[in-house]
């Protein structure tokens, strides 16, 4: 997900100024006549100094594990399906503010991905309907239209198609919000989805560090994803809602800070030119105490309960 624009203030100021000046000169109507390609290509002459200034800028993106990727990780870890863990479909009526709708669009997207990966097709359709309602509530046009719903129903037994629909609707919502100057809302959707994925994973351990060690490993490594979550939220903390959410996520960080991930070897990469695959190897060891694990379970549940209430 797009996150941080590290361009200088002048650049931001220029956007505002240029929109007002150039728009008033009727450039908009001229652009209408250009081809689609012209709209996405621009050439501007420049002198060296300006170019140097411009190139110093750097865009930074933080890509969180999406609800779909998280569901895949859960499934690959050998976890089972437990419908009781999902956010109740009836809860949707509670979500009336933008914050509630955004967080729970993420939550329901994660639940939708989980149901889909475990071939719970009837539940998938119900959860898709809820994500549709919340997307509409947030003003996201055409994220999930009737055609998408029909396609979903017609492909209930084709997981590949279902995953494709889920990924596309998630991208559409995210892109719509980002490109319509509502990046803070887009971040809330991502955070809601990430927290729900973490909630599902932690509950599926049944509170045991021993039952499914692979799943425990997945949870431990969310410490790395937490880094991207926090950095992403930091960029939008001028938004009051994000600032409050960031406080909650930082409470999670205090617990994750007690989880140990230690690289025990140098990282190595082997590239197979023919298959275009690079394999990256590094040994690492992880450790989480029972006490910290229980604290983590409680904190994740607390945050998730706050999101869905």
């Amino acid at each position, binding site marked *: 997900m797009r996150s941080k624009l590290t361009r200088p203030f002048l650049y931001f100021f220029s956007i505002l100024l240029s929109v007002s000046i150039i728009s008033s000169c009727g450039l908009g109507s001229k652009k209408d006549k250009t081809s689609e390609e012209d709209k996405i290509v621009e050439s501007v002459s420049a002198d060296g100094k300006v170019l140097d200034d411009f190139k110093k800028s750097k865009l930074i993106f933080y890509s969180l594990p999406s609800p779909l990727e998280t569901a895949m990780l859960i*499934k690959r870890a050998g976890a089972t399906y437990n419908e009781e863990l999902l956010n109740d479909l009836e809860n949707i009526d509670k979500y009336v503010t933008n914050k509630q709708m955004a967080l729970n669009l993420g939550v329901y997207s994660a639940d939708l991905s989980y149901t889909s990966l475990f071939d719970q097709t009837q539940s998938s359709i119900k959860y898709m309907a809820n994500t549709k309602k919340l997307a509409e509530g947030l003003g996201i046009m055409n994220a999930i239209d009737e055609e998408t719903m029909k396609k979903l129903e017609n492909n209930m037994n084709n997981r590949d198609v279902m995953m494709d629909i889920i990924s596309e609707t998630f991208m559409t919502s995210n892109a719509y919000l980002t490109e319509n100057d509502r990046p803070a809302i887009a971040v809330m959707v991502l955070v809601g989805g990430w927290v729900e994925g973490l909630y599902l994973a932690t509950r599926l351990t049944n509170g045991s560090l021993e039952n499914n060690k692979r799943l425990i490993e997945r949870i431990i490594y969310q410490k790395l994803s937490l880094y991207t979550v926090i950095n992403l939220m930091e960029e939008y903390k001028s938004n009051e809602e994000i600032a409050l959410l960031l406080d909650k996520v930082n409470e999670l960080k205090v617990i994750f800070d007690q989880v140990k991930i230690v690289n025990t070897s140098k990282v190595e990469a082997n590239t197979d030119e023919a298959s*275009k695959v690079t*394999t990256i190897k590094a040994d690492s060891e992880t450790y989480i105490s029972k006490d910290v694990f229980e604290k983590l379970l409680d904190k994740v549940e607390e945050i998730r309960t706050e999101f869905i209430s």
Partner: protein
Amino acid sequence: MLALKRVILFLSIAFFASTVSAQCFSFAKNIGKSKLGDFVHDGNYNATILSEGEKAELFKTFFEGQKYRISISKIEQLPPIHFKLVNNDGVVLFDNKDHDYSLSWDFEVKSTQMLIVEMEVLERQTEDIISGCVAVLFGVEVEKDKKK
């Protein structure tokens, strides 16, 4: 006069970036996604306008056991994009310069790693600069036991 020229350039680039950013979604959806092939798009949207010489970085956790495809798409008119995959210590794990500036590559990690995709739009040796949509999409390989 020179100062005015600089301001106009900044304004032009900025205005362009603000007005065409919405175009990048269709570009990512229609062009970028198709380049993921059999891999399932993870659903994340990473696309923006980049200009020649401009750099971007993307932070992502790569999970052990998952096979990922990175697909970078750009408008045809933009010069090649140089991309590298590096770890937190700056160790270069992949450099597309060694592979004919390929914009699509698969990665598999044997232990979970936070990695950084570093990108730079190369420059032509001309006085004007070109800007355009660049999308970075991640695909995840689907399980073998997939239901059909």
